[in-house]
């Protein structure tokens, strides 16, 4: 059994129902039901909450705590808004017209600031509209470029796919030729040695047996091994170079930079060593041709995998952000310089905050798996894009340790529908951006 005693302040009957938008007023001319019971019209705005959804008290704070029925402020000369019932009569001026605190009188009354607010808002809207228009223009260009690029890339991939079998066949042919030529040359070399060695036989009889056996071995092996050795050394270098390239591509996606760094260093040293070795040798035209052919093949394959990756990274719905490709934006805080390189990585001075992990929504992206925090998670950076014609980092914070958050202005975040909202602003809702 529950009794409720409460104080009541007088509410004057009015022609319009307080707190209700003009277009909804008519609803209150008919009967009102809530919780399966009809509510007397006299109970509307009587400052006593009869309905859990607040529908009987659209104009008072009596049903504070629910969000089904919101209080409507006309805000003439500014934008109408709805506020939570909890804001009505709480002593804080929430609406520029002061209608939420109509009971405050005299000095404590809320001043009507709608004209100023309206002017400020329309100036802000104007600025936003300007930004939006400019942004949309940039975005359109970016998208059309991106589309064109996409087409080009696809064509290139197609081209490569078409050319590759022919190139591979050519390479096989060349390899065969070279193998044969090498075998011939090496055998010839050995033959010129032979008379000289025979000359030595007399002086070095004790060594003859061994030399002969050596010779026999050389003769026996020349056809197969020697040729292969040259090829395999080159292949090794190529493999190394390939591995290095692949490694680089992969580590862009992978968390572990340190291994990437070492790989890069090792790879660099190795390739230098090999090329300097090779510089000592006389260049065989056939070998040169072979090398070139292999280079062509590899660069085609590399290009194909890069283009494929790029196409996958930037889907059509994010073409507006295509201009961020190969671009880094900087942000200076009092302590650090942040560098956000899109589709690559983000850094806080020398600390890697994360590698590009892709978009998570139409206007959000994330860099993940940065350097580990001591005893904590790996660093990561969330990027929220905000509509604007220019490209810049607006803010960069660390809301909880090692979880960073950046706001980046970019035309990619501009959407046509924003135009409508800015041109004819809708009623403001409390859950909208504050």
């Amino acid at each position: 059994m529950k009794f409720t005693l409460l104080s009541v302040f007088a509410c004057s009957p009015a022609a319009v129902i307080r707190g209700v938008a003009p277009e909804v007023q008519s609803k209150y001319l008919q009967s009102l039901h809530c919780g399966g019971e009809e509510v007397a019209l006299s109970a509307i705005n009587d400052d006593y909450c009869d309905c859990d959804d607040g529908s009987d008290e659209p104009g008072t704070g009596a049903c504070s705590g629910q969000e089904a029925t919101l209080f409507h402020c006309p805000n003439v000369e500014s934008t109408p808004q709805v506020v939570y019932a909890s804001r009505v009569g709480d002593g804080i001026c929430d609406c520029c017209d002061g209608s939420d605190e109509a009971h405050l009188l005299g000095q404590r009354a809320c001043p009507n600031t709608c004209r100023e607010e309206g002017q400020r808002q329309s100036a802000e809207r104007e600025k936003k509209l300007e930004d939006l228009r400019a942004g949309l223009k940039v975005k359109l260009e970016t998208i059309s470029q991106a589309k064109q690029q996409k087409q080009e890339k696809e064509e290139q991939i197609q081209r490569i796919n078409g050319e590759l079998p022919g190139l591979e066949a050519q390479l096989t042919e060349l390899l065969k030729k070279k193998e044969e030529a090498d075998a011939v040359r090496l055998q010839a070399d050995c033959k010129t040695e032979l008379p000289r060695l025979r000359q030595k036989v007399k002086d070095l009889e004790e060594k003859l047996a061994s030399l002969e056996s050596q010779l026999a071995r050389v003769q026996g092996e020349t056809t197969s091994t020697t040729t292969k050795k040259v090829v395999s050394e080159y292949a090794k270098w190529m493999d190394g170079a390939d591995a290095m390239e692949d490694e680089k591509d992969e580590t862009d996606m992978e968390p572990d930079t340190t291994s990437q760094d070492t790989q890069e260093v090792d790879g660099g040293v190795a390739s230098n060593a090999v090329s300097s070795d090779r510089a000592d040798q006389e260049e065989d035209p056939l070998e040169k041709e072979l090398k070139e052919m292999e280079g062509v093949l590899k660069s085609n394959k590399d290009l194909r995998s890069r283009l494929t990756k790029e196409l996958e990274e930037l889907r059509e719905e994010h073409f507006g952000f295509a201009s961020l490709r190969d671009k880094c934006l900087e942000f200076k805080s009092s302590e650090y310089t942040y560098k956000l390189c899109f589709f690559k990585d983000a850094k806080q001075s020398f600390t890697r905050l994360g590698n590009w992990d892709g978009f998570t929504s139409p206007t959000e992206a994330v860099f993940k798996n940065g350097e580990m925090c001591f005893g904590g998670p790996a660093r990561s950076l969330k990027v929220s894009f905000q509509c604007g014609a220019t490209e810049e980092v607006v803010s960069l914070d660390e809301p909880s340790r090692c979880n960073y958050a950046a706001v980046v202005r970019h035309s990619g975040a501009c959407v046509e529908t924003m135009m409508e909202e800015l041109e004819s602003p809708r009623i403001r809702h409390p859950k909208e951006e504050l």
Partner: protein
Amino acid sequence: MEVVRRMSWVFLILALTVLPAAAVDRSKFRTCEQGSFCRRYKKWISRPEREKALWTVLPQTRAPLPEGGFSFQVKHVNEETPHLLLKLNIYASGMVRMRITEIKPLHIRHEIPPGDVVSDPPPAAAKVSEADESGKSIFKFATADGTAAEAILHHSPLALEVSVGGQILQRLNARNMLNFERYRTPKERLPPDTASVAAPDTVLLDAAAHPNGLDTNGLWEEPFGGHTDQKPRGPASLGMDVSFLGDVPSLFGLPEHATKASLPFYQEPYRFFNLDVFEYEIDEPMALYGAIPIIWAIHRLGGGQTVSSGFLWINPSETFVKLERDTPDGKGGPAHAWWTSESGVLDTVVMVGPTPKTVSAQFHDLTGHGPMPGLWALGKHQCRWNYMSEKDVATVDSMYDKYDIPYDTIWLDIEHTDGKAYFSWNAAAFPNPKQMIDNISAKRRKFVNVVDPHIKKDEKFHVYREVRDKGFFVKKVSYKQIDDPTDVKPADWVEETKIPDPTATQPPEWNTEEDGPWVAPQIDNPAYKGAWHPRKVNDPTPDLTDFEGWCWPGTSLYPDFTDPAMREYWGSQFALDKYTGTNADTYIWNDMNEPSVFNGPEVTMPRDAIHPNGMVEHRDVHNMYGYYVHRATFEGLQKRTPGDRPFVLTRSFFIGSHKYSAIWTGDNYAQWSHLKASIAMVGALTLGGQSLVGADVGGFFKHPDTEMTVRWYQLAVLIYPFLRNHAHLETPRREPYVFDEKTMLRIKASLQMRYKMLPLWYTLFHRWASAAEPVVRPLFWDFLDDPQTHENEEALESQIMLGDSLLVHGIAKPSSEQSEATVYLPKASGWYSIHNGAFKAPGAHVHKLDLDSIPAYYRAGTVVPLKSRIRRSSACMSLDPFTLNVYLNPQTGAAKGRLYIDDYRTRTYQDVGLLCARKIDFTCSARLGTRTHHAKASFEETLKSSH
């Protein structure tokens, strides 16, 4: 905030390499056995023939005390003259206080200044009728409620018996464990013929005087954990036992320990030594941040009568308490406690009850009543280590508004400062702090900033310079040994190593003219005593320099807050023109005030540091350091905004902290065990007078999952008077709005329930401030006659009462492990579910659990004051109408309740009595339907006029 919690990276690495994850580092903290005085006391009380009378009260020496009461001299059986003085006071509210100190101590024995713990003037003396019988002095008096009581002082052996209604409840020194180490001159400095040194082995005095057979380690210096405690004054510990008589099923109290509500009888004594404990564990007698050494006992007497009594041990030095039973199973029968403290005087108070309500009233009669907190302090507090910028603060604030979630206060932890120089701002992140706080004020909300007591050593920091120049910093003594100037070489001391051989004679053939004069050959001097050195003594005027320790700022100094002049200075720093960037809605959080010294012994200040105020050793005042810090802050805020109710949160505290501060249970952990333990910890603290108390919701260390977060909020909104969400720097954000929508809505619903119930909370705080009733309390406090509340595990450890009206059962396991709870509803006329109004008879009930709520029941016959309009802060709701929910007693059709209203923020309720406190009696003769009635009572007019 704990040590490692905010250390620099280097520091963290050092610390974590030695710490296993999620566990307290025991090696850092002393046990009884590792401290010399406790070890000595333990050995001493296990001596053979303990029953032999050692201490005798000399009745003929009885004299009235100027402050009321009597004194007696006390003589040791092996001494000629009495050396101790016993003071006995009987207070009218029903307390017997016994103090023992030295008559002529060699050094001043530290006594807490009047008014700091025990009110000044002390409580009114009882009317006492005296009778001397052989061997005892009897004092008859009546408790406040008229119950006849007696205090009987037995002369030999000294013992004090306190009885109520003819039943003995407590006996002090019942087991003859009273020990009192008098300050002594070190043995080597005594003349060799001194009696005490020559005393035979069988004599038992104390360890310093008579080390034979006892443990002499650590008497004059004591190493621990790489530090050596210099003790130039020598040992001065004291100890005594108390027995709680009758059948005593449970003891309660002893805050602050992370233990159970019904205190376990651990092997290791409970320790009181205020410390910054990193990642404390549950079910432990280890010391924590604060100390209120009070024991509550339940006595089941003959004839089905159950009464309650309290025992308070007032000593701010390190203290151990051991709970013991006669029976090995540790259940039933009398319960005993022995206590020992490192220094100071023995000061004990028996609160004779005989009801829990009177014990609480007696405690507050002794220590003072708590002030009404501002209503906002009972709302939701949102804290984090750390909100990093003004924008961050504004965002948190607006996100609460976005989802219409109520909250009252936003907090900034240490990172807001300029290099941890408190009273300053990090200018890059907080360029316009005043504007930031003004924006919070504009939402009718409040702001709390952390100000820790350690002072950054930085010439540019004005507080450092000023405290240093005033000489207020705690000092370090550079102990050195010098030659004793009183020691002179004895006249007969022979120092010559060689002498001419006395047996040698000049040979006859010696020709003096040719050979020169004859000289006897040198031989070793048989009388040689060795080189004489004066004996070494401690330099009586050693160098005193400011003590420097490590804390958040790096090198830090620690003001002597025991000095009223220092407190005055400190308080003045909060003036709005001094503490720039703050406004009158800014309140203060004192953390790290144990004090925490990262590189100190046990992460605190060395015991041999010197407080310049009276040249008191830190050991003498250690457990009160935090108290003096938060009191200075409170008094400063009082001066800053006259008429306003200050708010200070403190981590460290002592008996009497309730007059100044809110406390929280420190750096807890996001674990179910910590959620559950908070019920017992809050209950123990409220029994210690500290009603404005709470634990960090969600746990400070680590991150709670959504279910734990929801369960923690559901419990906290109903049983934490101080409701704060806080989190470690290294955890993800956990403000209510960051969770998934379902979770967010559950948290929001909990917070809305809290705000709805604020009138009940506020009314209960008035009962606390005016009538000493704890706001939240273990079940026995209201239902002493129901034995289940003394022994039922669930009723003791999972349940607690909010006032006399709401019973709450905490859920401390995930739903995967627990799908139902057994709720014990004590003997009353019935109970109504807070959630759906369902009526339940007393007894055990199985409650099916869902994630939307935890079990909670209003007692039948209660009128509960509420506010149904939930707004964004408590101030926004201040003028809203009240809703009275009436939970009828089904037998009588009646219900009673209270409602207290004032202006919620100023001291006018105290100063000019501008308040409205109403008893509500509701009766209905006819059976009523369940329809909700609107009624305008004439009483509401009274309410309005009282504003």
